[in-house]
């Protein structure tokens, strides 16, 4: 698996872009199980980091990025520029994580 360059600026410094291949996206919708929800409920009393949910969103982000990379590789790109992340809550307890960027071929 060739290493794909992922960046969120317009260019890859020092490299030239030979082709633009359009937008690629990756997304995932995940939820934590009931046990974590209950723990989060308790945390609402005392405050502090909700480790369960942090893990949830981290996993989601990694998976969404992987899917975006899969799309880029399928069309022959070797870099993804101007990557943006977007998180939204689709339904109570579940979060959708969405990554998108422009797939390009560097020389």
């Amino acid at each position, binding site marked *: 698996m060739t290493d794909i360059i992922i960046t969120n600026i317009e260019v890859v410094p020092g490299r030239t872009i030979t082709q633009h291949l*359009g937008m690629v996206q990756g997304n*995932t919708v995940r*939820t934590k199980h009931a046990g974590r929800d209950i723990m989060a409920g308790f945390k609402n009393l005392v405050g502090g980091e909700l480790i369960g949910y942090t893990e949830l969103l981290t996993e989601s982000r990694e998976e969404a990025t992987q899917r975006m990379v899969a799309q880029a590789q399928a069309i022959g790109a070797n870099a993804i520029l*101007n990557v943006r992340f*977007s998180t939204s809550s689709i339904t109570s*307890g*579940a979060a959708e994580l*969405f990554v998108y960027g422009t797939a390009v071929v560097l020389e």
Partner: protein
Amino acid sequence: MFEVITLLTLTVIGYIFGSLNERRHFRSILEREETLRGVSTFTTRIPPQPYSGASHLATGNVVISIDYFKKISAGLRSLVGGRVNAYESLVERARREAVLRMKADAQRQGLDMIFNVKLETASITKGAKGQIGAVEVLAYGTGLSRTP
């Protein structure tokens, strides 16, 4: 007992009509993606220089509702944890539809390259008790012409 029967009937109706709807929508999406293949989308902001043609904002948005089967499925999934497969196909549909509508908007204006594309997702009412759950996706970008 009566509650269970109602629940089951609604779930079955939701599944049958929901998956029919979804398949039809995906077929339409694939068709239109082919017809609109001339319009490209990029998230980069720097357009090809020098540029002397027209440039205008192009937008597309859509609101898609969940069906009852998806609701139940997501509810069960929230007990167990993990990926909510039912909702993934929902947001995928919504996103691709929004991007297609944005491309159609650009084409209507005679533009065929859209730069600085941004996508915004929002959940309408989040499917709270007794209310409709729906997903809204807005796609927007600046359209430029390949041949000014």
